[in-house]
């Protein structure tokens, strides 16, 4: 292992992409959720927000992704700044499911190495938590009202 490489625990995305069954269920459920919310039908609700009234770090992501898919980048970023990253991950999941293993496996291996060498997933997840804390501490009323709709 090269000295720059960090433990495998910091690469959570590539194992997710490698497990096709899990990827299929995640992509399918996310698709159903996006369809339900787009049609203003009741879908998955955040259990944390429902009981406490405090948005969780992922609250608003579905609506932000829907707005992004509609091309409204500004409104999407207002809901959740990490929507483009989530959409990118969703696209990667769909590609993994659609493309043959001969193409996806080398790409996943490269992503795995990149995750381990740079730790970019850790940076994104920590960034997301900090973003949530900042919204909660400095923009709490606007944040809660935005999520409530």
């Amino acid at each position: 292992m090269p000295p720059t490489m960090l433990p495998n625990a910091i690469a959570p995305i590539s194992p997710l992409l490698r497990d096709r069954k899990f990827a299929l269920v995640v992509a399918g459920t996310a698709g159903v959720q996006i369809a339900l919310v787009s049609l203003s039908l009741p879908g998955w609700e955040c259990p944390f927000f429902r009981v406490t009234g405090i948005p969780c770090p992922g609250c608003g992501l579905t609506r932000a992704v829907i707005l992004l898919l509609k091309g409204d980048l500004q409104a999407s970023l207002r809901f959740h700044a990490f929507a483009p990253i989530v959409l990118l991950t969703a696209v990667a999941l769909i590609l993994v499911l659609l493309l043959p293993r001969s193409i996806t496996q080398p790409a996943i291996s490269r992503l795995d190495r990149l995750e381990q060498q740079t730790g970019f997933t850790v940076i994104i997840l920590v960034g997301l938590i900090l973003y949530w804390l900042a919204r909660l501490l400095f923009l709490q009323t606007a944040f809660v009202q935005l999520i409530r709709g």
Partner: protein
Amino acid sequence: MLGLLAMLVGIGCLICFIIVLIKLFQNEGALKGILGLICGLYTFIWGWMNSDRLGIRNIMMIWTLLIIIQLVLNFVFGVAMIPGYPPRPAPVVP
């Protein structure tokens, strides 16, 4: 009455979510745990896919049942524990 039921269902869902989330942190590490914290759906799917291995099948069944009850309450009665959530379309005024 329905509001109270919605509240109890919501609390039940949260308890199941926390139990599965703890299992996720213990078995998959902090990063996937954070992923599960951000996306409850991920935790729910992971819980079902590992329910036999971790012996949480009953918890997953209870959680699923509670989600179905929650969906029915939302869809049929429009009951929401938090006022204004989930957002409802504004009534059409002539």
